[in-house]
């Protein structure tokens, strides 16, 4: 990283005492130089942003030649190659334009005439505004004159970069508190602005980046436009960067995209800068860079998530996190650590947005930081951590507080010699039951404290008594019902055959109770198109029996005995059936399907068998057959961007609503595997799964050869994963606050009980808390999550997670204890829920406003006074803006007609059920350079920032976001590497559609496969590996995950966003 920048910018570093670690990331003064740089590299993408401002016309014409080459080139060595960075305008143009985001031309303008830095800052701010205004945000674009841009930028570029690099020592980064992002130097702003523009491509003309203020300090701030090249890392390269920077700008202009915006600005300007300024700039740049440190906003100067992650890993990775301290902030989700439960639930189970709650509601309101916990009750516990203990309190059931019903836990205070205890939640004093009595030691603790998990641990389980069972009867083991759509599409694609084959082996791996010989789970099979076929696979039968139910209007289960069976016992019959199914329907021409009746059938079957369970539905098309829950195509692209856009995501009510209730009441979880060739009304079809703790998988245009393995991996994982059924959860809290809102794949029939037909190890629930009253600092804030569920063995249990937090009247405490990953999870879920009821535009505005409010509050109350132009971020929220910006760019929220409505709805469902870990990587994918990997090392190479400028033509990168995985191959990637990995001589020999990565016997191949497999193991869903060659069509898919860049479908670059937020903050502060 170019931490030097920090050094250069004294203000930052000073300001944030605490933040040290942080600031480095950002702080880099080099940023300035970067500007130029980043402008360029990103151009590939980010370029557009800048370009936007400018008139398209000019850009295309002017830039082309240079740009072309540059895009990749730039990447190659971080910033290095100027020429490259220019990236072929032509190339960029088209792409850009296609996306429709017109990058602003701002950059260009900047290049032309360097205005005084100050001015620039101003301009920036104004620009941003404008930018947002057009797009997402509100304010109409100010009339920022293009000129300004023109003037300022160029200068900056040239000058700043070099200097910064040189100067800024890494140390500074550390020191400078991340919090302050302040963009101190006006110059920087200037630089930044362009970037800003970039992302808010929208932002019309000219106004560039608002003053991001001091780029350096804030490393975070940011490079809106994303630092082109600059990888976060190497300062050295920094030098190079500068040069790039300028280019970058040029490109941007070049990126015709800008067209729309640009038009106003500057046709003329553009032209000017491009041709003249840039060239000039470059040469000069290097030298200049060295000199003036702070002038420009370097992408490396804005807070880098990868750096933050790395730092945390360095600092806390591999350590044991002992949960004995109240309000202790856990390591980041990305950090590899071991948990030792000593009274608080592992962060794997519960993670909070802040570990220090404000004492009063007023304070909470003031800071705007949401108080929430993300609970993943079934989170997988790593092998090296202790599994949950099981506590049996005997026939009377778990001991609970008489008043609030909280379960016995470490927060109960035993008094009166151990005869009574005071509830840690409601303070009620209860008698200790005789059989539970134990003497207290001199500390007032029970003698048996360490013998009883419920007195010493944060997480444990109780055996539930009959009182906790439905109808007071012990539950039956759950059942898995496989329901296969055998309509024409699925037969033709070979899917049915694939599933049937897989099930034969898969069923051997049904989850089982620890120590059990075989799984207690029963299985059943249904096939359907517009009618349903049930199968009797009773072990006594010589051959299976098929029972057709065509009365889809009122679904029922035609058989009881023989439908749900033990796989081991009925294996021959089941195998016989699975062999026959593909043949039976081989010549079907039925293309209509039903859906709601299928789910209904599953529910009825479970009802008849008096058990809970899970439906695996393999479905192909929108259910149009005459039946309840019939759907029609209501995908209307015209609604995108309008007030009514939200209706696209609202499920059809009625049948599905009732179905959800039925499912939840029966403990019937629905997992939906969709194989659509076209619109399927995902919003409605996903409604039931998303309320029953189910998962949704979607494989568009499924082909066995292409997606088969991916699907099978998902299926395997889904079948095998640990899960609890028929669950009901309650979150109890200490006095003064309470859980008010719940987000997740759950159903709520009242305001406190969370009902989940099933909950598995990947499902997380986000709970928001509100103050009722004042919290005391000594008592802190305690919470207890109690989950009553049925195990896969058919046992009823209560899983308890306890967590205690601090309370503080000091906002600084709160900000210090914030957990960005958890925060963004909360924001993602709340936004995704809000989008059902509010226009997307409003949702986005709220998100941005809240971001600005939080940061403004920090600035106002916690940061040391500094120039208003400085952007100061709390250390713990340093990378919050990049996540937030990424969230704003997620397909669901971005609102583009080019994204399929189904995909957006699908994405929405996915996110609603995600835990912190998943949202983190989703919003900030890992981009892992492979060309530099050390094949002898075990570890995964350190990821680089998600920005085009970090790519290099000669590089090879692996990108993963938890949902998909890309292997990006630069055009100039080493033939040796290609040979080693693909067994073909060169890049050119690679099939552009290839998705398979052969397993070869050489170090590189082995290493890559080991990386991929270790990544997949960390993720909840299997990821399909897509191999993307640079400049291939498929590259677009890849690029939209470079979240620091301007979004392909709209959305600002990181840098631009930061600028915008900063401007907002400044407004708030004044």
């Amino acid at each position, binding site marked *: 990283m170019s931490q030097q920048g920090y050094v250069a910018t004294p203000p930052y570093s000073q300001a944030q005492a605490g933040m040290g670690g942080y600031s480095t990331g950002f702080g880099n003064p080099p940023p300035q130089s970067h500007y130029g740089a980043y402008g360029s590299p990103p151009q590939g993408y980010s370029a557009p942003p800048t370009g936007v401002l400018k008139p398209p016309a000019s850009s295309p014409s002017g830039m082309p030649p240079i740009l072309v080459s540059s895009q990749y080139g730039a990447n190659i060595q971080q910033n290095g190659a100027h020429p490259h960075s220019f990236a072929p305008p032509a190339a960029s143009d088209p792409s850009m334009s296609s996306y429709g985001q017109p990058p602003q031309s701002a950059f260009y303008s900047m290049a032309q005439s360097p205005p005084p830095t100050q001015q620039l800052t101003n301009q920036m701010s104004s620009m941003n505004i404008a930018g947002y205004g057009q797009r997402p945000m509100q304010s109409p674009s100010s009339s920022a004159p293009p000129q300004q841009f023109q003037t300022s930028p160029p200068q900056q570029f040239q000058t700043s970069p070099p200097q910064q690099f040189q100067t800024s020592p890494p140390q500074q980064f550390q020191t400078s508190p991340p919090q302050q992002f302040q963009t101190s130097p006006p110059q920087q702003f200037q630089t930044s602005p362009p970037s800003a523009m970039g992302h808010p491509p929208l932002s019309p003309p000219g106004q560039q980046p608002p003053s991001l203020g001091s780029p350096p300090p804030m490393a975070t701030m940011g490079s809106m436009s994303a630092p082109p090249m600059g990888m976060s890392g190497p300062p050295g390269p920094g030098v190079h960067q500068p040069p790039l920077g300028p280019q970058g700008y040029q490109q941007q202009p070049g990126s015709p995209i800008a067209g729309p915006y640009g038009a106003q600005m500057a046709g003329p300007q553009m032209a000017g800068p491009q041709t003249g300024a840039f060239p000039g700039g470059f040469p000069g740049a290097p030298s200049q860079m060295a000199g003036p440190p702070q002038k420009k906003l370097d992408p490396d100067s804005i807070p880098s998530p990868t750096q933050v992650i790395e730092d945390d890993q360095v600092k806390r990775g591999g350590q044991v996190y002992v949960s004995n301290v109240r309000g202790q902030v856990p390591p980041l989700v990305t950090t590899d650590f071991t948990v030792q439960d000593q009274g608080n639930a592992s962060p794997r189970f519960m993670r909070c947005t802040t570990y220090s709650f404000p004492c009063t509601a007023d304070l909470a309101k003031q800071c705007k930081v949401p108080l929430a916990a993300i609970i993943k009750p079934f989170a997988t516990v790593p092998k090296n951590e202790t599994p949950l203990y099981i506590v049996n309190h005997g026939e009377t059931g778990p001991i609970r507080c008489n008043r609030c019903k909280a379960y016995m836990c470490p927060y109960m205070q035993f008094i009166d010699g151990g005869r009574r205890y005071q509830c840690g939640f409601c303070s009620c004093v209860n008698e200790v039951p005789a059989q539970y009595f134990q003497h207290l030691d001199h500390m007032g603790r029970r003698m048996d404290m360490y013998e009883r998990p419920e007195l010493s641990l944060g997480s444990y389980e109780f055996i539930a008594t009959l009182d906790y069972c439905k109808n007071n009867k012990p539950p039956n083991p759950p059942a898995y019902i496989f329901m296969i759509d055998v309509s024409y599409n699925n037969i033709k694609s070979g899917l049915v055959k694939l599933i049937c084959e897989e099930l034969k082996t898969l069923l051997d791996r049904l989850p089982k109770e620890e120590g059990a010989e075989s799984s207690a789970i029963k299985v059943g099979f249904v096939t359907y198109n517009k*009618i349903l*076929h049930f199968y009797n696979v009773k072990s006594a039968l010589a*051959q299976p029996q*098929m*029972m057709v139910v*065509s009365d889809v209007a009122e679904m*029922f289960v*035609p058989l*009881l005995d023989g439908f749900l069976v033990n796989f081991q016992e009925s294996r021959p019959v089941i195998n*016989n059936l699975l062999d026959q199914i593909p043949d039976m329907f081989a010549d079907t021409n039925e293309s209509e399907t039903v859906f709601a009746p299928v789910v209904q059938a599953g529910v009825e079957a479970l009802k008849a068998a008096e058990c809970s369970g899970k439906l695996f539905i393999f479905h192909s098309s929108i259910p149009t057959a005459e039946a309840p829950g019939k759907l029609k195509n209501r995908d209307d692209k015209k609604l995108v961007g309008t007030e009514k856009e939200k209706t696209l995501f609202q499920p059809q009510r009625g049948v599905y609503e009732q179905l959800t209730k039925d499912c939840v009441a029966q403990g019937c979880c629905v997992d939906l595997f969709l194989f659509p060739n076209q619109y399927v009304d995902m919003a409605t079809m996903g409604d039931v799964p998303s309320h029953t703790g189910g998962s949704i998988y979607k494989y568009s245009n499924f082909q066995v050869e292409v997606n088969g393995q991916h699907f099978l991996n998902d299926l395997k994982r889904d079948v095998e994963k640990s899960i609890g059924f028929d669950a009901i959860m309650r979150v109890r809290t200490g006095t003064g606050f309470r859980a008010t809102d719940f987000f997740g794949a759950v159903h709520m029939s009242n305001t406190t009980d969370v009902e989940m037909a099933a909950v598995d190890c990947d499902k997380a629930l986000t709970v928001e808390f509100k103050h009722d009253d004042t919290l005391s600092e000594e008592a802190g804030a305690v919470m207890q999550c109690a989950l009553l569920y049925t195990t896969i063995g058919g046992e009823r249990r209560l899983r308890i997670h306890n967590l205690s937090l601090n309370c503080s009247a000091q906002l600084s405490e709160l900000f210090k204890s914030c957990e960005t990953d958890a925060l963004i999870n909360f924001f993602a879920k709340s936004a995704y829920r809000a989008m059902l009821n509010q226009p997307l535009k409003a949702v986005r505005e709220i998100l941005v406003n809240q971001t600005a409010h939080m940061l403004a509050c920090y600035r106002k109350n916690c940061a040391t006074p500094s120039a208003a132009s400085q952007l100061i971020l709390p250390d713990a929220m340093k990378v919050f803006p990049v996540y937030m910006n990424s969230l704003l760019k997620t397909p669901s929220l971005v609102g583009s007609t080019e994204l399929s409505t189904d995909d957006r709805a699908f994405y929405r469902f996915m996110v609603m059920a995600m835990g912190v870990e998943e949202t983190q990587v989703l919003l900030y994918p890992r981009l892992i350079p492979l060309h530099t990997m050390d094949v002898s090392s075990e570890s995964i190479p350190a990821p680089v920032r998600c920005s085009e400028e970090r790519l290099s033509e000669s590089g090879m990168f692996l990108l993963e976001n938890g949902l998909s995985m890309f292997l990006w191959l630069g055009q100039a990637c080493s033939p040796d590497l290609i040979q080693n990995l693909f067994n073909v001589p060169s890049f050119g020999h690679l099939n552009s559609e290839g998705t398979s990565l052969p397993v070869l016997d050489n170090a590189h191949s082995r290493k890559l496969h080991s990386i991929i497999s270790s990544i997949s193991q960390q993720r909840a869903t299997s990821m399909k590996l897509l191999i993307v060659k640079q400049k291939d069509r498929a590259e677009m898919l890849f690029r939209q995950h470079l979240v620091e860049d301007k979004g392909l479908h709209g959305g600002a670059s990181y840098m631009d966003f930061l600028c915008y937020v900063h401007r907002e903050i400044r407004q708030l502060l004044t």
Partner: protein
Amino acid sequence: MATYQEFIQQNEDRDGIRCSWNLWPSSRLEATRLVVPVSCLYTPLKERPDLPPVQYEPVLCSRANCKAVLNPLCQVDFRAKIWACNFCFQRNSFPPSYAGISEVNQPAELMPQFSTIEYIVQRGPPTPLIFLYVVDTCLEEEDLQALKESLQMSLSLLPPNALVGLITFGRMVQVHELSCEGIAKSFVFRGTKELSPKQIQEMLGLMKPATSGQQGKPLAPHDAAASCRFLQPVQAVDMNLTDLLGELQRDPWPVPQGKRPLRSTGIALSIAIGLLEGTFPNTGARVMLFTGGPPTQGPGMVVGDELKTPIRSWHDIQKDNARHLKKATKYYETLSNRAAVNGHSVDIYACALDQTGLLEMKCLANLTGGHIVMGDSFNTSLFKQTFQRVFSKDYNGEFRMAFGGTLEVKTSRELKVSGAIGPCVSLNSKGPCVSDNEMGVGGTCQWKICSLTPATTLAMYFEVVNQHNAPVPQGGRGAVQFVTQYQHSNTQRRIRVTTIARNWADAQSQIQHIESSFDQEASAVLMARLGVFRAESEEGPDVLRWLDRQLIRLCQKFGQFSKDDPNSFKLSESLSLYPQFMFHLRRSPFLQVFNNSPDESSYYRHHFVRQDLTQSLIMIQPILYSYSFYGPPEPVLLDSSSILPDRILLMDTFFQLVIFHGETIAQWRKAGYQEMPEYENFKQLLQAPLDDAQEILQTRFPMPRYVDTEHGGSQARFLLSKVNPSQTHNNLYAWGQESGAPILTDDVSLQVFMDHLKKLAVSSSA
């Protein structure tokens, strides 16, 4: 002329006809005064081994509303090749194919001995017979096993090209697909939801999906044959079906304590009928329902599933306390009519110790010519053999069943047809010979009889419409023609034509002749059918009163007596037995519901209205034979005086076959004398009634309940309830005498009945 006895016998043998009167009163007024209407019992398919069918089409009268068939009563002008219709007097020319006829070369239909003739006609492609088994699976394991075996056995009895189908039901209804390999496939329906025929066909995939324009229109039969996987030729699916039946399991749904199993009979039948209706309308088909209990859910439910609510009894019905009765009856009637319209018949094989809802379901069989068989269990020979006998073959090796019959009646103009009573439905065909005065199923001259056996006998009632002041010319004859079109079991279409004629007589001048032409057996049965028909809709006592009044009026009309002197009353020979028939009829289960469940009543009545005269008479007045050492077996009076210690009695009530060993015989038997060589004669005596019983059992359909009992045995009640209680505990003055056994009853005896009758008949006030 021979005696009327011979005449009647001869006519019956030739035409299958027994008339109440063999001389017909020539005016409406006179006819009404005769009390017993002009009517006949007609057995359309009476077996006539001596009557080979002719292979051509019948010649029809050309008058549009007549269309009578050329018959021996027609006047023929051989030279002009013209014949005159004897019903409408239309003159018709013979068709070209008759060009060669002459006095000496007459076609069969003109010969007097062919007053009944059968034509084989070619109409459309032959369609195979269809047998659709509808099987209740809520049976005891043993019962189900027996039923499965019977069904499997039946497959071998079916014509090889016959189509078979299988529907099973319990809580759900399953329609089994028969042509699938590797996996047994069935369509399942909820047992509680009523579906329209269209829905059923859609759900079974019988609609052509592609041609949405024609939706709702069933497939043409031959298409359906190809596509209907549910009905397949026996020869093709024999093995499959045998296996399928073998694998049938009891309804798997748990039956909680205190509940009846849920049995969706109503829906199963509706689906069966819907299936046939959609695929093979107007084709001979039998839906064979095998049930072991009452329908307990869904439409057609007869009783709820709570065991604590017993199934309706006559008591409940009379108190209007049978909740489901009306609804269920209506439901089954609707179904019956649908089946009848399409020419499909429904058999009910109900085997259970308790009632099974025959009362509600009877119309299915009654209106479609189906069988009803009632037994205690499927695991009895009664059921097994009866069921086997359904598929019995005649002397030609052909099944004794015919399908899709229509019976049309044509009358000469002095007569009109009032109605018919039998296993038929009205086709609502109005014509000149239809009387406004309905008796039985009237208002039409055509009836549909979906299924016929050689024994199926209808009672036809006529009205003489000739006015009193328009006398029929001397020697005039009234004629009636019965035209029965049907599908023979070998799938041929056939037409049987019976033309009868009777002389008109002036009732005033020839009353004695008319009286002597009275066929008291036929009349008893015909009146009994009227009574039973009434009993279906009227209160029991009203029917009895009506019957009594008719009897009294008849006696007044034909009896010889002096006013108010009962002792002077006499009846001529031709009427002498009639009152006795009426006496037994009054006591019969057809009119008495006491001691019978509604199901039993329905069952008895069902058979009564379809059997031929002989069987009907047995039902009215059971036959009693006596075996003793004193002579050959002899018929004895159905009277308690016939019950003697040293006799063996064999009683045939049609439904039961009772062998009753007198007290002494029973002791001997118990002592084992029959085992001793020296008492070989005793052994023979014991064996004799068994042999005779066996003979009856061989031919009877349905199999009677076979009872072997002895004096004092509990089963002796079957005998005791039938005999005339001439000796009861009330009048047993001859205690100790060899005068039979006293019956413990308050019922009136024949003697008392006759006394009352006489008194009333001679009473001037009556």
